[in-house]
């Protein structure tokens, strides 16, 4: 009986260890995404701003053609 309880406890510890390592992997993946998103945001912001300005100039050109 005592032996069974010890084995069950060991099994629980093992499962707990697996879950902990899974959480570690989750953290790694989240941190990786955090770094990538941060880098992407820095690059895409400048691109989006210039695209916005170019599109506004395009709006003016299209309006000139369309409404004139």
């Amino acid at each position, binding site marked *: 009986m005592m032996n069974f309880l010890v084995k069950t406890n060991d099994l629980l510890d093992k499962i707990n260890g697996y879950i902990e390592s899974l*959480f570690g992997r*989750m*953290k790694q993946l*989240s*941190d990786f995404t*955090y770094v990538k*998103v*941060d880098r992407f945001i820095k690059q895409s*912001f400048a691109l*989006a701003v210039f695209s916005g300005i170019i599109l506004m100039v395009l709006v003016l050109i299209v309006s000139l053609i369309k409404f004139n």
Partner: protein
Amino acid sequence: MNDFTNMNILDGVLGSLFYGDFSGLLIAIVIFIVLTFVGINFSRKFSSANEQFIRSNPTTISNPIVFNVSAVFIFLAAILSLLASIVGFDTSYFFESLVGLIVQIINTCLLLTFASVYFSPAKMNIRIDENSSVAEDFIAFLSFGLKLLAHFSKLIASALVIIAVIELFYAVLSMLGDDAYASIQLVTSSMGKFLVGIFAPVVIYIVFLFSYPIFNYLLAILQIPKINR
């Protein structure tokens, strides 16, 4: 109020356009470009100020378990929603499903980014201190949302600007069609969204400036019993 102002600007721009007068639109575009560049300058300064706010306002928690559990739930929500989107991909509606999947991938990346901060509360200047009282823990949890807003001010700004640019692109395409009024309306709304995005760090700074002192006062009250101890 905002809609009313938008409509007035819109009516002014449209009215002048239909009469062949482009000066209104030209002035609007020049103001837009000037505001954009001034806004970027302010935005950069205020983004650094927001980060400085976080650095100069440390909080403590006795145990990070609540943040870790929240991080696991956010992570699982991100992965499960992505899996649901992949499983639900319908080839008979390929384009709609593809757009839905791309939006879901972006959503998952954003959720994982948030999860990363929850996994490491130190990024928000939250120190793990065993001597932290329950009240200090509570203040750390309450102030976390505000710190999150300040930390991601650049991300929020970029997201709004990108959404506005996509809308603007769609507006330019639809301007070539028949419904000029709707497309000009879309142009003005996306211009507004664009400028809101540019100035988002400034707005977040003001929100932080007027809201965070409440937590400082509460923390100061908690320090009183520790004086002369």
